[in-house]
């Protein structure tokens, strides 16, 4: 009947608990619907119940109860516990047959099992988390070196037998990570070229050394900006995609299935992505360099009146070819780092969809971090050998 009500709110009956004393006999009469909607009031009534001193027995009369749900049944148990706590012996009357299964269910529940974890004290928690993060970081680093080793071995296997490689997959990932990234990489590099030239022109004009804008734009774009901007975009774009793709496969147990079919996930999932990025990132870097220089040339012409041909000849005389190679040689190294981190984090996904999200974030952060660290190492190396 209750289910058929058509009012806006379910028609809960008034619930009540009344204490009666008839011929020295104490009776508690429960009435109405003991359901979750009436629970707050009933809870309060049970708390406010005056427990008379000098009484030995009490009868709880349940005959007046209409509907009973688990919340109501729990309150009845709470009432029992409270009365028993004041040394009353309790008897029941009027228990309806339809309520009995639920009352029995609730009776079986153990009291006091914690449902929430109590967090340790604040300071201890900070120490614990720091420790766990440190240990985790070291483990990750070791595992990542191990993963790199595995990849090198697999790569060697593929070089010996190139037929084993999934070339379709490689081409697919080249399109996804390279071709599709061209608009955004081009736009950002062009803008960076513009900004470099504009800022440089502003400063160099004070010394009347406007023409050195070409050196500034050329060297900074070719050595650092082109490759760095490209790598960071690709890490955000493709590194995260690698983690999410492999992670989702992990959640769906596709990776497990691969393993049981005698297929090697490292060879099928990781190598094609790695190879694709090793090919496309240098190409993208070259493209970014060209577009960046174009941006610089445009701004030099607008701001300083340096024509395109004089920009080119100044570029040729000022920027030696080793600057170009110093930038380009970083690209495959960065590509390997991004692909490795992206795939590694993807394979770390366990069970839930939530860990896909968490590890994707981690993948982007770690790969950008690695790219910048590697760039710094390259700078030190280059300055030591005097390039």
């Amino acid at each position, binding site marked *: 009947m209750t289910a058929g009500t058509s009012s806006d709110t379910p028609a809960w009956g008034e619930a009540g608990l009344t204490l009666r004393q008839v011929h020295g006999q104490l009776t508690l009469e429960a009435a109405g619907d003991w359901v979750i909607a009436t629970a707050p009031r009933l*809870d309060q009534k049970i708390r406010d119940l005056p427990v008379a001193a000098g009484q030995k027995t009490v009868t709880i009369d349940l005959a007046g109860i209409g509907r009973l*749900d688990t919340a109501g049944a729990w309150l009845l148990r709470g009432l029992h516990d409270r009365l028993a706590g004041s040394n009353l012996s309790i008897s029941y009357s009027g228990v309806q047959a339809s309520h009995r299964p639920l009352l029995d269910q609730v009776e079986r529940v153990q009291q006091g099992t914690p449902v929430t974890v109590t967090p340790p004290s604040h300071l201890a928690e900070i120490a614990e988390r720091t420790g766990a993060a440190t240990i985790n970081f070291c483990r990750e680093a070791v595992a990542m070196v191990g993963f790199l080793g595995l990849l090198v071995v697999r790569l060697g296997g593929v070089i010996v037998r190139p037929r084993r490689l999934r070339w379709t997959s490689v081409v697919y990932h080249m399109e996804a990570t390279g071709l599709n990234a061209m608009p955004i990489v081009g736009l950002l590099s062009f803008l960076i070229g513009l900004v470099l030239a504009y800022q440089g022109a502003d400063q160099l004009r004070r010394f009347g050394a406007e023409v050195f804008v070409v050196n500034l734009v050329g060297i900074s774009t070719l050595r650092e900006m082109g490759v760095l901007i490209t790598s960071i975009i690709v890490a955000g774009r493709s590194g995260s995609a690698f983690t999410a793709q492999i992670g989702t496969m992990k959640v769906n147990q596709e990776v497990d299935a691969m393993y049981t079919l005698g297929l090697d996930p490292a060879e099928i999932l990781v190598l094609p992505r790695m190879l694709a990025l090793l090919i496309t990132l240098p190409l993208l870097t070259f493209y970014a360099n060209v577009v960046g220089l174009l941006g610089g040339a445009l701004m030099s012409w607008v701001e300083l009146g340096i024509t395109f041909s004089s920009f080119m000849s100044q570029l040729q005389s000022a920027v030696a070819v080793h600057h170009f190679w110093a930038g380009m040689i970083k690209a495959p190294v960065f590509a390997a780092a991004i692909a490795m981190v992206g795939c590694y984090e993807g394979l770390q996904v366990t069970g839930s969809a939530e860990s896909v999200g968490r590890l994707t974030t981690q993948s982007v952060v770690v790969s950008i971090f690695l790219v910048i660290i590697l760039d710094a190492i390259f700078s030190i190396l280059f300055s030591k050998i005097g390039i």
Partner: protein
Amino acid sequence: MTDGRTDPDVVIRVRNLVTRFGPQVLHDGLDLDVRSGEVLGVVGGSGSGKSVLLKAIIGLLRPASGSIKVLGREVERMTDRQLRDIQRQWGVLFQDGALFSSMTVCENIQLPIKEHTDLPQSLIDDITRVKVAMVGLPPDAATKLPAQLSGGMRKRAGLARALALDPSLLFLDEPTAGLDPIGAAAFDALIADLQQSLKLTVFMVTHDLDSLGAICDRIAVLVDKKIVVDTMENLLDYPHPWIREYFHGPRGRAALAAVH
């Protein structure tokens, strides 16, 4: 066709339901009445649209045409407020539990209680404990994340969340699939218990012939894009080949032998 608007005993009324995905028609003019306080088992071959029917009734999927009334109201034409009221009165258990993966089991169960009532936290904790015990989960499971549970335990936790507000209408999508036979039997007993004390109406998509025999009052069979509803005894004598095969196949016979 009897006019059901005046019949308070019908909780779910489906009339002339048509659902289709592209050119594929799943239900074609399907009629169904679910009566208050009954346990209705819905069966049908794979791809016959059992889960789709369930989704259409709870408003997750918009049918191509037809009317669906739950608790006397058209599902598609409800205001947000009415929908909230109805949602408070039904509980849904999805196939794999559909627990929120970033919350512990206990937080999952407490979420609807906190959202729809203003009980004190201590009472909410108590009710959570009751639900956890009711569905047969060990007490320490309450503090775990769904990813740390087995498939069967996730299902139980999902049921605990569906029961959090003690709904009057319970939708179960293959509740006993993936449970061991003992757990499945205990689950059947639990549904029967709850149904008695709460006067629950249960809409259960299932393939478990044992639960069909043990707890279902009536059985709805989805065949030929329509539905046939009857008691188990009467369905046994139906001439339709699929229904015959279903109840008289080797598994059907074994389950029936156990019931009688």
